[in-house]
């Protein structure tokens, strides 16, 4: 599974497939904050210096590093 390029992903709705590439401790933390496999994730904005990224899961917005982004396994959801 590959991560999706930031510029391509901007504004699109994506699905979190898995968080396998994170350490166990980090995975637990991500689950607690609501980033669960199967959830929808949207890359809302890219901040001034290109990093961090602003994402949204459910109603909550997060700022996330490009490194973290690169470790996420995401899947694009085709818009109907």
């Amino acid at each position: 599974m590959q991560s999706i390029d930031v510029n391509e992903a901007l504004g699109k709705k994506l699905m979190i497939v898995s968080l396998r590439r994170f350490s166990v401790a980090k995975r637990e933390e991500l689950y607690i904050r609501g980033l669960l496999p199967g959830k929808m994730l949207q890359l809302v904005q890219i901040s001034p210096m290109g990093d961090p990224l602003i994402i949204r899961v459910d109603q909550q917005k997060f700022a996330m590093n490009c490194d973290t982004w690169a470790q996420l396994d995401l899947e694009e959801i085709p818009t109907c």
Partner: protein
Amino acid sequence: MLNNKTVGIIGNPNVGKTYLFNRMTACVGCVGNWAGVTATTCESRTCGEDQYRLLDLPGCYHLAEGREIQATEGQQEVASYLSKRDVDLWLNVLDVTNLQQQLYLTIQLLEAGKRVICVINRIDLLPKVQKEIDITELGKLLQVPIVKVSAKLGMGMRDLEAVIKSELTNPTLDGREYPVQYHQAIEQLLDKETHHGLTRWQAWQKIIQADNQPVAPAWHFNQQIAELRNTTGTLTDVMALTRTEFIENCCQRTIKEKGISRDDRDKILDRWFLHPWLGLPIFFVMMFTVFWLSMGCGQLLQGILEPLLKLITVELPTFICKLYRLPVVVEIVLVHGIGISLVTALSFFPVLQVMFFSLYLLEESGYMTRAAIVMDRIMRQLDLPGESMVALVLGLGCNVPGILATRHIPKKNDKIVTALMMPFMSCGARLTIFAVFASVFFPRQAASVLFSLYVLGISIAFLTGLIARFCGLTQRQTSDNYLLEIPGYQWPSWSMGVKQAYQRTQRFVWRALGVIVPICITLALCNHISYTGELLIQPADNSILAWLGKSLSILFYPIGLQAEHWPLVVSLLMGLLAKEVVLTTLNVFYSQMNTNITLASSANELLMDCLTEIGTNISQGYSYFIPSLHADLPAWASYLNPEHINADAVMSYLIFTLLYFPCVSTLYATARQTSWRWAGISVLWSTGIAYLCAAGYLVLKGYVTNSVIELLILLGALGVSYYIKEQIKKRVTEKLNKAEGVTSP
């Protein structure tokens, strides 16, 4: 009856645990604490008839299960309390605005077999966040008593007391089922372990530990568990996922969000604040506004407050001492010690008040998080978070609020490094010194001198950050450390802001007084006692301080000051108190004028003088809002002319003033935010670097080039600093290796 019972308060960071603690123990005495930084556990007895022990634990998001080594300090402390059995009841404080994340800790507590009361705090915010919580339903789902309170406003405290009492006297827990049901195979595994006498919590710990071992436990070959592991990873994932799914389900059933979402407005605001091109300029404009407002309004208020303070604490006591012919020592201690220190510390009040208020507005409105995001990339060059840039920029106004603003920085080490960088951000008080000297010695290049001094200060600050990174004090902010929640924008509550700013300022000023008063008294005595032991009515050149200045001028020879410049040396010493004092000291010595002991004939006259001063300050108030480089030259400035002292020496004196130990208030703030040890290191580091830079400037300028001694001193200092750096590096690597050594098996 409840005397031997203990109740612990637990919850995520910054949910108002300490507020609740203070509210419940109010009769016994409030344990003052900065919001969100309960570093260690506080303990006290509650008020009322039935007293019991109450513990305030540091906040933690969740407990590290089966991975004790990786646990943070807070987690370790909480875990140690959980494993001890002497806590009878836990109050799990939950913040109403973000329940979903916090319930994880609740689940962990319940699985650990603890008796828990969920305390939903900040219910006064419910209408604001447009939510409704069905607590009876939530209580049923979690099988715990739930109480809604607002610790800040004191709502619901009686209900809470009643529930605590009934829980302590007749517990309802025994025989309760655990709320979260795991996969069948895992439940079987857990049952097997609990049959051996372990609690569900301990069983989980054991399973997770076994799961992470390189040698696979027997149950890895159970078909169902192997399947689970295949799909989700480890059993920790299965556990966490089951819990979070349960929590989500709970929240969906009990929390109703009503009203319109503010997405559209947030989107527009974020588009500007996080704009690819305008984000940075907007950040600097915002920071400059805070800076300008707090300096302007603060100084305007200071103009009113300071003459009044002076009247009460300096002039009136002087008048009374003279009137009743009290001994000179009394006058010195009362006026020059206590009086001056009160004026120094309390004159910070308005500036801090306005600064805290503006910070509160930025924080509550939600801009602070955006600012941290905007600056994150730049500060990551130094491995520091974006918040430290906010603090550093504020430090340009006055170092004290800058250092106090480091409380927004989540990691302790980052906080320390930012505090170490802070003294090099040139504050407003230093600007006045530079302005006076620059307009006397470099009238034509005053602006460029000022500018280069600022740039020097900022570059040394960044150098400090780089060295800290090099020494391993700040760790690379890896992806693992950065997932920041972005709150929605909201209107801040003005009255709350004023109240909070007042409380923070008051706390700081009162505590700072404890440090400043003794130092001031010592300096005042040194200034008024001659080295032969006689009392001096006025500071003269045979006082201990002057003598000290003359003797110390040898030390300052490398930075261009000679014995005849001892007033400059003394002014540097007095500058330890506050940089504002530097010019006052020079005033006293150079003009040999009797400055603050102009004896008025009557109390009336004193009052009139004070009122006139306030009047002038108010009428000139607008000037505080207009930054200008041209300082009004004081009368004594003519004594400081190029005939008396070399311009290069003045420049190096200015460099030294810029970089050395900022002032006692900053020292106190640093100690408060970090520790006295780091405050000491900050003093040594800033003074050392100041000495090096000032001397280095002169050497470069060729002023004392043939002096081999200084070069040797310089080389020696460099050697020592290199040695210290190596030592620190060695220790840090040792520590890291040790930590790795423990984790790897």
